[in-house]
């Protein structure tokens, strides 16, 4: 173990979610060999934390979110075995995963738990934050769809998570819907109000992920999320290799090797990707309409199945103010659109 990397001062901590958020983009089909290759590459590049789970967190394997090809706990065990320096983290959404899942992954060697709720429902995280803390894990409260709550509203929610014992608080731009100004106001309010560090998880649906992450750092965020090659829900996450390169340009110390991250993205992750992370119409609509990013591929499948427009499905979901986890509403909307089309043809 290199003492140089472990004692190096960094300006923000990078949490890589290629093996969790990236799981959405490959419909939860990760194989053990892929997990090992990604962990090895990220670990060697100096990434401090590597998150792994089903895309919808522990226990997410389901009809509603897609079944995992390989049991996530088997993949997590491989990741824990492979990581030499990096901490392995798991995400859990109360209502989907169980506190019992945290106990299981702790035994596998997971060192960090991120407990995620919709940005207005922080009080459902108490049971799981406390369980993770009792298990001795670093515990992060993770507020999703943060564009749907005001800076002051987020502060109120974050204070709840802090009171349950969270070691840090994240806001996630799960719909990739925030402008840089939106991010600045929210991070600024949280940094002012909280005793614990703040983090930001950005998505690229409006092509703002790297800029928003840098803005978050400038406002005092001490943790930033990304994924290799941007692999993730919607139009993708903040690409870690780009974030590292841009950080270097700004003179921000990250502790990670930008060139090695470029190698991982190009040589390990891109060859696994069924599609490149581009901002096509559907991806852009997610950000524009403020729709949860992981709906993208589910909406594509429903659009094909019921012969309706993916864009129409996503716009309607935005109008209905659905939140993360309501993937079943994609089928609901597709059926209603198909019925409307049929009625119009009858006329």
């Amino acid at each position, binding site marked *: 173990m290199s003492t140089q990397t472990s004692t190096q001062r960094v300006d923000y901590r990078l949490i890589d979610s290629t093996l969790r958020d990236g799981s959405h983009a490959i419909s939860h089909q990760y194989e053990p060999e892929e997990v090992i290759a990604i962990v090895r590459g990220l670990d060697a590049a100096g990434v401090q934390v590597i998150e792994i789970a089903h895309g919808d967190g522990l*226990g997410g*394997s*389901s*009809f*509603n979110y897609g*079944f995992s*090809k390989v049991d996530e706990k088997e993949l997590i065990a491989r990741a824990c075995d492979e990581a030499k320096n990096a901490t392995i983290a798991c995400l859990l959404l*109360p*209502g*989907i995963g*169980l*506190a*019992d899942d945290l106990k299981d992954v702790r035994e596998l060697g997971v060192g960090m738990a991120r407990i995620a709720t*919709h940005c*207005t*429902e922080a*009080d*459902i995280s*108490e*049971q799981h934050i406390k369980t993770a803390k009792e298990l001795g894990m670093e515990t992060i409260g993770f507020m999703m769809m943060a564009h*749907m709550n005001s800076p002051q509203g987020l502060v109120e929610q974050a204070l709840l998570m802090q009171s349950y014992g969270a070691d840090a608080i994240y806001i996630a731009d799960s719909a990739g819907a925030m402008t840089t100004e939106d991010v600045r106001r929210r991070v600024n309010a949280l940094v002012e109000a909280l005793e614990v560090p703040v983090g930001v998880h950005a998505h690229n649906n409006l092509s703002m992920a790297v800029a928003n992450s840098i803005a978050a750092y400038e406002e005092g965020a001490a943790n930033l999320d990304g994924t290799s090659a941007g692999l993730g829900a919607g139009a993708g996450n903040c690409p870690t290799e780009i974030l590292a390169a841009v950080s270097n340009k700004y003179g921000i110390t990250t502790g990670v090797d930008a060139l090695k991250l470029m190698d991982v993205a190009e040589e390990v992750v891109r060859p696994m990707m069924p599609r490149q992370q581009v901002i096509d119409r559907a991806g852009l609509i997610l950000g524009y309409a403020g729709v949860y990013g992981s709906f993208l591929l589910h909406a594509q499948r429903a659009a094909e*199945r019921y012969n309706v427009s993916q864009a129409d499905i996503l716009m309607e979901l935005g109008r*209905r*103010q*659905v*939140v*993360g*986890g*309501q*993937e*079943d*509403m994609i*089928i*609901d909307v597709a*059926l*209603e659109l198909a*019925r409307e089309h049929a009625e119009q043809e009858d006329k």
Partner: protein
Amino acid sequence: MGKKCAIIGSGNIGSDLMYKMLRSDVLDLVAVVGIDPASDGLTRAREAGLDAPHTGPDWVLENADDIDMVFDATSAYVHVRYYKRYAEAGITAIDLTPAARGPKVIPPVNLYDHLDAPNINMVTCGGQATTPMVYAIRRAIDSLPYAEMVSTVSSKSAGPGTRQNIDEFTKTTSTALREIGGAEHSKAIIVLNPAEPPILMRNTVFAGLPEGSDHTAVLDSIHEMAAEVSKYVPGYRLKNPPVVEEGPFFTPGGEVPHRAVVLLEVEGAGDYLPTYAGNLDIMTAAAMRVGEAVAHAQQEVPA
């Protein structure tokens, strides 16, 4: 002459149940029991001409000779402390908390299996909404390897009990899908949605259909069950016609070629709670259904 009943708990559920029970010919509500004399729920009970003691479950035990049946709308914690004493006092307890001390009852599936039980558990709101559909699918096919439910309720209708122990909801509901619904494997998911105005309760049931399943029989059975539940929960309906989607799907119960998708909505009756709180309405409506069936059974076979 109805059975003498008391509701324990003067919160939202207790008040909603009170208004339903006041209309019953079979259940004779005599008291709503609380712990705070100034609470809105006890005030409502007094206005309805009922006894409204504030000495909690002990009042029921002190007046056991005059009470045949209690409906517990407190919390799992309180129910666990008292359930044995209700039974010892000869009082049938219909448990609306997640305590799960007695057999679980989903009216259109197993209402008549446990009418003589001293304690009957009402599972969860999501369990009441979705277990009937899992059972409806199961009865139309040879075996059901895997079933899943997703319940979305408005943030305003999810009380502190649910929020502090959300695992209890998912575990209890998932168990009901197997033990009562007949699925071999199961999963339950709950999502809270803060949209304004509040959304109606939504429930989706997914069921893996093995090779050779009669899809028409499955869909017919789903429609029949929707009609059955809506007899006692008038706001229970299929939001869209049920569909069978082509896979394959690799479920925890094995690979299946198709899945059934049932999209449900539950609008509350608005007895006390607003109509969006279908999740609370389906609990009180199901508890009424059970209470009335128990009362009928006890009248037919005097103890």
